[in-house]
């Protein structure tokens, strides 16, 4: 668990001068290292130790933190009661009665899950095991990590059991060094260096400027990448995958902004538009990353935050703002890519040519923008995505099932980065069949994970004869630029 702080805050907390804190850091008394945005990071335990040394109570505590008094009282209880393996009440898994004991064991969840039965994974069984307090087995198993957290099970559960919450809780309880794949590493890199892939600030700026020049020459005369533009209307966060591996993909959004004559900017620091804390079950990191976006909004004095476009990040950011930064939502507005693109289309700020996409086109509903968003925020973007499609294509078709009961692409919950490729591909068979049956030739995704799974995996694995585009890529490709 990492604790992020500013020297000035720490000085105030301990009632000393900023220089003292700096001296402590330099001398090693305070085991912290420098992070991005003139902030420092230290282990929460070290911070706790420091507080104890100076006889202070820590002013923040992570969710997993248990104070000494509680530990003592629990230990006392344990010595009074015989410890048994089954008997959920004392287990961490039992703390939310919304799941488990309401389960009817009807199997609706398992019948909805495309990877039920694979390596023994079965949501019904997992709920049962949690109820029985078999947390050790559950935490040790890879089931929660193979689950794409698509919430199709939860969506149909007649007892309203929070299966997705349970899966994430199980993820959060696994020791960090045993988190599969690069998920936890990405979180740590992001905390320490400002983005999941550790791209240095200078490189990022240089890349953005270079891409801006290219775009100006190609199609948008006079375009300059607006980096750290104070007072811009919209702040845009960037998915680190793009500057790292697919920099040209950034131009689609830029082209749209150019056509709409939007005032927007990208921050040179803490620009990451990915939030893997959602995947690893690490609320503290999730909060820190969302907090950085809030800082960017304040520092650059922007009016509107375009919520990061990737489905999980949209969900994590919106969730984080609601939960930890409700005051920030009074300072600025948030909008999704759907809200923004529809605004441009409906206000006539961009012109689109439908004839460029005459083929059969289907919209894939990302779970995070669909049923999960509907449940968490009371808002879905089923129709928004389709409205944009109809503005860009002449022949829109549907996959069955769709909208709230759509099948996940198979790469949700961080599965794209997880070392369970076989399961991910097997999961994707449902999506592949849906696409085949819809006869779509072009499939549109509004999430990075879905698009990558479709374009870079399912097409090859299932021999699909389709093209895959991002929703904003579709809009950019349909743009009629003035002049």
């Amino acid at each position: 668990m990492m604790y992020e702080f500013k020297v000035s805050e720490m000085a105030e907390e301990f009632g000393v001068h900023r220089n003292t804190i700096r001296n402590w850091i330099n001398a090693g008394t305070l085991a912290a290292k420098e992070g991005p945005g003139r902030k420092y990071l230290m282990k929460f335990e070290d911070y706790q130790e420091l507080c104890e040394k100076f006889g202070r109570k820590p002013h923040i505590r992570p969710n997993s933190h248990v104070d000494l008094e509680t530990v003592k009282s629990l230990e006392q209880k344990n010595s009074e009661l015989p410890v048994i393996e089954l008997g959920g009440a004392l287990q961490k898994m039992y703390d939310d009665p919304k799941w488990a004991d309401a389960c009817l064991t009807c199997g609706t969840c398992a019948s909805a899950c495309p990877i039920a039965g694979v390596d023994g994974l079965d949501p019904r069984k997992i709920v049962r095991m949690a109820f029985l307090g078999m947390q050790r087995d559950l935490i040790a198993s890879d089931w929660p990590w193979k689950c794409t957290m698509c919430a199709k099970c939860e969506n149909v559960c007649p007892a309203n059991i929070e299966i997705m919450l349970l899966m994430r809780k199980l993820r959060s309880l696994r020791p960090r060094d045993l988190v599969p794949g690069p998920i936890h590493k990405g979180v740590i890199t992001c905390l320490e260096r400002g983005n999941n892939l550790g791209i240095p600030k200078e490189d990022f700026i240089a890349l953005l400027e270079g891409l801006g020049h290219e775009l100006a020459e190609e199609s948008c005369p006079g375009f300059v990448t607006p980096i750290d533009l104070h007072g811009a209307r919209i702040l845009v966060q960037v998915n680190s995958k793009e500057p790292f591996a697919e920099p040209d993909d950034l131009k689609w959004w830029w082209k749209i902004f150019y056509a709409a004559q939007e005032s927007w900017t990208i921050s040179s620091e803490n620009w990451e538009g990915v939030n893997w804390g959602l995947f690893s079950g690490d609320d503290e990191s999730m909060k820190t990353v969302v907090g950085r976006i809030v800082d960017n909004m304040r520092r650059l004095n922007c009016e509107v935050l375009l919520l990061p476009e990737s489905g999980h990040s949209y969900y994590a950011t919106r969730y984080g703002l609601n939960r930890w930064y409700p005051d920030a939502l009074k300072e600025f507005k948030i909008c999704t890519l759907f809200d923004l693109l529809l605004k441009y289309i409906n206000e006539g700020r961009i012109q689109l040519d439908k004839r460029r996409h005459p083929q059969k086109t289907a919209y894939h509903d990302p779970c995070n923008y669909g049923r999960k968003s509907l449940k968490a925020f009371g808002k879905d973007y089923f129709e928004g995505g389709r409205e944009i499609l109809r503005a860009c294509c002449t022949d829109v078709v549907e996959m069955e099932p769709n909208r709230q009961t759509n099948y996940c692409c198979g790469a949700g919950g961080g599965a794209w980065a997880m070392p369970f490729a076989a399961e991910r591909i097997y999961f994707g068979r449902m999506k592949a069949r849906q696409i085949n049956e819809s006869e779509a030739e072009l499939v549109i995704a509004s999430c990075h994970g879905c698009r990558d799974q479709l374009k870079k995996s399912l097409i090859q694995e299932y021999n699909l004869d389709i093209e895959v585009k991002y929703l904003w890529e579709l809009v950019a490709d349909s743009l009629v630029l003035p002049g």
Partner: protein
Amino acid sequence: MLNEPIKVGSVMIVGGGITGMQAALDLADAGYFVYLVEKSGAIGGAMAQLDKTFPTNDCSMCILAPKMVECGRHLNIKILTLSEVTRIIGTAGNFRVTVQEKPRYVDVDRCIACGICTEKCPKSVENEYDASTGKRKAIFVKYAQAVPLKYQIDPESCLRLKKPGACGICEDVCVAQAIRFDDEGKVHELSVGALVLAPGFEAFDPTGAGVWGYGKFPNVITSLQLERFLSATGPTDGRLLRPSDGKPVRKIAFLQCVGSRDENRCGNGYCSSVCCMYAIKEAVVSKQHVPGLSAAIYYMDMRTHGKDFDAYMEKAKSEDGVRFVRCRVHGVEPYSRNGDLRLHYINEEGRQMEELFDMVVLSVGLTTPDHVKDLAEVAGIQLSVGNFASTSDFAPANTSKEGIFACGAFSGPKSIPQCVVEGSAAAAAVSAKLASVRGDMNKVRNFP
């Protein structure tokens, strides 16, 4: 006994289904005068829509019709059709009830039920009696065995009633001169000693839930619709043909607990009590209709809690070859464009399975309709969770208000045999209250 109100020896029964009819007959035979208030144009209720009844596989109409006829000709039962209770004042023993009778637009004293009006009527609409599987005309009789066997005009669809001066064909062809386009209905003010509420239920409407494809895929139907397809008086004359293309059904699936035991899709946490049994019955009867038919019931747990019910299930398993699969299925998906349906589910070994079906039947639960909730409000009685009448285990027909009784599906979903028991129980409870005025209001036939 100075404070005892003057008791009235007549009783009002609200609801003309099997429960209400049983209570009416018991009370009328016991010496009370009975007003039987029915919302639709004829008594009979939901049982009249069923093909067979469990656990005996008896013909539903064959059991029901004699009771209906008895109610219709009973000297001490007055049937008020197209009627609803709008106000109840007074106390136990002496209630004053306002009943609003809607216009029938047909003079019941003149109508001879020849049917020529229906034959000539140009307007066809969906038939409620057939659970929207068939059509009826704007002037119609609810069903062939209806009591009273009198025609009625549906003002919602009649061309003439919607636009004065239009159509009027029925009036021209009616040999009995029974058509009354100017009928305005009636308001009855009636004194009764007690009320028995038996307004029944409505089948859960799965349209809004989305996941089962009802209303989207034509071959997904409700169990009540299947009753009509299996019935000789139904839209297909009892042949099991699927709605999309009229193809004979060879493979059929039943999905249990649709609209019951589901807090998520409909907020109905309760068990509807009858769906397990009626699904088995429908599966068995379907197999009788179509030799070689494959029938599977997807269930969570089979609740066959009644006399001979469990033996009925065992027989369906071992002798009739109905397949039982323990899994609630999350949804219904279309299979290509030919109308076949695909179910994706998990078997008892935890393995994923997929199967194709010609037709999927949703075993819909029982819910309390809005007009019954209104009735409860008019009567001032309490409803329990799930909007069923609140009653006590040891006084099963008593509601929260003295002198007002409840029975049948209104006090909780239940089977026909249990409804009949409750109808009689309510009659007995009324009888106990009004014993002192028994015979005061009843008519006696005097023979010369």
